[in-house]
């Protein structure tokens, strides 16, 4: 009559893992490589995320910015902004942290096949897009033209800058960088991301636009893409929302009835058009 079986794993309990390497991406963003004791990780898809625990401080969700198919450790690009991210920044290689995941739906890669990709990122929002870019480089023949439009406040806030050259060197891949404010050491474009879309007028036919960035950028980019003639189903975005559990229970991350942790974080514009004021 009473439960005889031993409790199954509690999805709210993380697995201990080790930081194998840390690389500084910008003044407040570090790239963390994370491995479990056996040197591996769990399989994940582009666009999924995991919770990282700084034991004694707490836990927060971060998108996985590496590509599973490349092998190697899981990578997280983390901006120092809250208590958990600050505690993670204070950690060094060899430190133990907790990992729960992977969570979320990830990008619908199957629907991207054979299409031109317009990848639009703002600031740290490039982190969830990086596996999509890497995927398009690894499986180059699966996709048409790839345009990456990436902006940040200043050129010093552009993350993964050391990889830009490699990305742009691949045939059929274009990287368009922009910054909000000019400054010494930058002779590139100074414009907001929506203005760059307007300027470039990416091909709408057989294209899919994939967006990640701060909510205000997402809103203006959506408007610009619509103006360019993109249909709702051609627009995919990842959303950020406060979350604690990752398994659709704590009821924090929902935007309307969509749970960002389970139904998302990747949504088509069709799915969220009714809730725009809430993102």
């Amino acid at each position, binding site marked *: 009559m009473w439960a005889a079986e031993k409790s199954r794993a509690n999805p709210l309990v993380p697995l201990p893992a080790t930081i194998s390497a840390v690389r500084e991406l910008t003044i407040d963003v570090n790239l963390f490589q994370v491995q479990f004791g056996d040197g591996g990780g769990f399989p994940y898809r582009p666009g999924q995320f995991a919770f990282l625990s700084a034991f004694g401080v707490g836990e927060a969700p971060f998108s996985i910015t590496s590509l599973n198919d490349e092998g190697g450790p899981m990578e997280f690009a983390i901006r120092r902004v809250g*208590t958990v991210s600050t505690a993670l920044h204070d950690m060094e290689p060899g430190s133990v942290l907790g990992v729960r995941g992977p969570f979320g739906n990830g990008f619908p890669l199957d629907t991207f096949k054979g299409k031109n990709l317009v990848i639009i990122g703002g600031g740290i929002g490039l982190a969830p897009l990086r596996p999509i870019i890497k995927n398009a480089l690894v499986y180059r023949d699966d996709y048409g033209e790839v345009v990456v439009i990436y902006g940040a406040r200043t050129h010093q806030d552009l993350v993964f800058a050391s990889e830009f050259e490699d990305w742009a060197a691949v045939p059929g891949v274009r990287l368009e960088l922009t910054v909000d404010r000019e400054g010494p050491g930058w002779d590139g474009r100074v414009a907001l991301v929506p203005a760059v879309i307007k300027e470039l007028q990416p091909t709408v036919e057989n294209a899919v636009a994939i967006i990640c960035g701060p909510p205000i950028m997402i809103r203006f980019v959506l408007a610009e893409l619509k103006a360019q003639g993109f249909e709702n189903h051609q627009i995919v975005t990842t959303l950020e929302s406060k979350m604690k559990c990752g398994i659709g229970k704590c009821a924090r991350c929902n935007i309307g009835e969509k749970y960002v942790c389970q139904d998302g974080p990747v949504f088509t514009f069709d799915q969220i058009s009714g809730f725009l004021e809430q993102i």
Partner: protein
Amino acid sequence: MVDEIRSKAKELLTDGTVECVIGYERATDGVTARPLFAYTAEEIDRFIMDNTCVHNLARYLLDRKGKPTAVVVKPCDSRTINLLVQENQIERDKVFAIGVTCPGVVEAHWGEASDEAQPRCVTCSLEVPAVYDYLVTMPGERQTRTGFPDLERMETMSPEERREFWERQFERCIRCHACRQVCPGCYCPICFVDQLDPTWVGIRNAPPENQVWHLIRAFHLAGRCIECGECQRVCPVGIPLMLLNQKLAAEVEGMFDFRPGLDAETLPPFAVFKKEELEAER
């Protein structure tokens, strides 16, 4: 009396002095009162005013900063306006206070309004609001201030008995923080209990954490609590929070001869430094 409130309220809406009048209407139990934000004359017709009108409506001024608002205030509630003006939270000229003289309000909880005066009314010395722009008289025989009877009872207890008493109270706290939400003096953008860096109060719902929560909150209100008693009224598990506030109010009054919110001019003791106070300590 309620007719006077209604006609003044309509006048204020009609002539554009305010956009909203906050008063009372009958609650769904048919017995107690609830706040009503009236934006139209029809809504104003639902206003009531009697000894079940327990809520401190002036607390809502924090939600309507910068928006011209009229609010019905009893004497205790009126002290909120002085407190918030003095602490630069609201602008006096955006507020129209419809003051109501008060013979005391009764213990009113869902479905029942007793004849018993609220503890806060027993200790209240104000019959007329400390601040108002228009005054209405609520009929009824007024109780006189009898000091702090509950507090005096508490003071007869030994420190050990008091500690045991408060541990028993804090044990059942569910940490809903309703006491803070209803308090006109609790308006910090991020309350210390919600701060993570540093973490002042642990997340565990346990007596030590609960005690830290209630005691620090009480100290944050020392010399600021305007004794509306709303924290105690709303507490779902009946913690006698006003005992803490009254203790500190009595200490502040004894030491500095100061009660907050009686006017907007007298600087509160914790906002001024007097050299002789330092001397007195020595």
